[in-house]
């Protein structure tokens, strides 16, 4: 038996307010990431960065299905997941720009966005490592019987590293309330995932090894993602253990700032650009009778917010040099060692 749900849409009538929220969030993520890209081009973002352009439906669909007290663990491609949990745009953008008003005071940067107050428990740049951390957080929920669920996002490349398998086994054997979401964008950095993986579905085809059902969802369809995430979150909250969801999607750009993504065939890129999750969702709403004026209002509101965040980030100073030595140890500093 399988619950494989490739290319499916939500069944039954969707809640119009929730669908407008899903659209708004996807537009926010899209336009934030585009602005981040523009700011790279202006050399205002130092160092590398990894954008979620093209993958917004996953971040939006899962986040809106979560309870506010559920936890997110994300990867270095984590801007979207951080915003989706409610972290405001200004501190997130300011963190990318290395400013004092950044989410982490300008000390974390693009790859380590963390906001404990939004239950965004971190972006992790060691591939696969954080799956075990999510299992640990889930275990704390099981201990407390709090009904909270840990959601852990990771890329297709992570499915071939040891920690992925350790975490899946731990979570399954202890029936932990955790939802593992593989954002399969078909490329492990610069390499097609299919060329380095023994099975066609890098996550779903491993599920059986841990007694889990394979779940594949169209990662470019926010409604489908929302439904699959809701089911997995419910399952975890009921005490029925972890889920492994493979959301198939595509990066519109390269792996990182330095990568133009030229190793991907043009026709493949074009086919996926034609399946842009944000424009597809807009068409869906229009087709179902939502007034275009309403969508335009959402879009202009988001544009204004992105502009405001950009100004507030650019105007802020970088952190002071002393910031390097704070919060290393529990005494708040590192003076005893330097």
């Amino acid at each position, binding site marked *: 038996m399988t619950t494989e749900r490739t290319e499916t849409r939500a069944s039954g009538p969707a809640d119009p307010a929730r669908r407008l929220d899903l659209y708004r969030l996807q537009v926010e993520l899209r336009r934030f990431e585009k602005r981040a890209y523009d700011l790279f081009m202006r050399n205002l973002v130092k160092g590398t960065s990894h954008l979620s352009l093209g993958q917004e439906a996953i971040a939006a669909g899962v986040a809106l299905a979560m309870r506010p007290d559920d936890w997110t663990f994300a990867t270095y491609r984590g801007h979207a997941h951080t915003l989706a949990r409610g972290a405001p745009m200004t501190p997130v953008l300011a963190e990318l720009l290395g400013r004092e008003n950044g989410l982490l005071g300008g000390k974390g940067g693009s790859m380590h966005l963390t906001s404990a107050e939004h239950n965004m428990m971190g972006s992790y740049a060691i591939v696969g490592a954080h799956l075990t951390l999510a299992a640990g957080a889930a275990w704390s929920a099981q201990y407390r019987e709090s009904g909270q669920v840990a959601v852990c996002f990771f890329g297709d490349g992570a499915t071939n590293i040891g920690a992925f398998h350790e975490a899946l086994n731990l979570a399954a054997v202890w029936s932990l309330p955790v939802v593992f979401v593989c954002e399969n964008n078909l490329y492990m950095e610069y390499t097609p995932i299919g060329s380095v993986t023994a099975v066609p579905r890098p996550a779903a085809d491993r599920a059986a090894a841990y007694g889990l059902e394979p779940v594949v969802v169209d990662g470019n369809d926010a409604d489908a993602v929302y439904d699959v995430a809701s089911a997995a979150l419910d399952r975890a909250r009921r005490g029925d253990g972890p889920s492994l969801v493979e959301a198939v999607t595509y990066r519109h750009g390269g792996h990182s700032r330095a990568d133009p993504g030229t190793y991907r065939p043009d026709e493949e890129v074009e086919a996926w650009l034609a399946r842009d999750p944000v424009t597809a969702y807009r068409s869906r709403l229009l087709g179902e009778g939502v007034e275009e004026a309403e969508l335009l209002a959402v879009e202009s509101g988001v544009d204004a917010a992105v502009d405001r965040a950009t100004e507030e980030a650019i105007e802020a100073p970088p952190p002071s040099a002393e910031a390097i030595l704070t919060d*290393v140890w*529990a005494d708040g500093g590192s003076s005893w060692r330097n």
Partner: protein
Amino acid sequence: MTQLALARALNAGMRRAMEADPKVLLMGEDIGRLGGVFRVTDGLQKDFGEDRVIDTPLAESGIVGTAIGLALRGYRPVCEIQFDGFVFPAFDQIVSQLAKMRLRSLGKVALPVVVRIPCGGGIGAVEHHSESPESYFAHTPGLRVVACANPSDGYWMLQQAIACDDPVIFFEPKRQYWDKGEVDTAPGLSEVEPMSAARVVREGTDLTLVTYGPMVKNALAAAVAAEEDGRSIEVIDLRSLSPLDTEALTDSVRRTGRLVVAHEAPVFGALSAEIAARITEACFYHLEAPVLRVGGFSAPYPPSRLEDHFLPDLDRILDAVDRALAY
């Protein structure tokens, strides 16, 4: 005062920490039903249950990673690494996540994880089972690294490590697990000497001999032997490898004028190099001789028939003492 073997003292320390704080959990391979391969957790699962003394899969990255997640959400996990060399699969989690999450959250999350590591050689068990990996961890900002050398410190330092809001890498000299010593369990945790402080375990005037963990016993024996030759050696048990109690070392060396540092780890890039550099800088005009070091060879730890040649013994320590005094 009671007489306890180190393994029993560590066990009693964990028992007291678990009684004091329901958030303290023990995790590791074979630590529950078996009580650990060295029996350090013997009986704890029976008394505290399978939810608090957890038999994990054989997966060190998973064990430490899961512990980090638990700590992020308010628990105080104590992970047992079965043998020193088995910590390396978890090395990434320790240096990349455990040491850094506090800073990454601007101090908003604490990582009160203890990683217990039976360390050192002398049990005839070849590489992976006889190693001294402390320098890797002491090098990493964000980690505390300590080593106990007797049952009393095992009992108290482990409780202090569990209560500490920093992650602590806790080294236990495995060949001394069944060596007995006096343990005074009467005081409260806040009343005993902090684990960050070094301790003068034998006073002397001619030379300072600094060591930690399994080598403290050898250093004391060397001091006794040297006394027969009329030499007065001060022995310091470092206890905390990071942070270093530099003040205790400088106080001693300014009196004795000579320093020998001994450990089982190979000396290249080892903790003794850090100590030598710091003491040379802080005590330059007090030193009568260069700081000398005694340690393992820069070679993989050998099989049992060769390990006596590898481990720094009384003769190698005394040779360094002689050379320092001959300057």
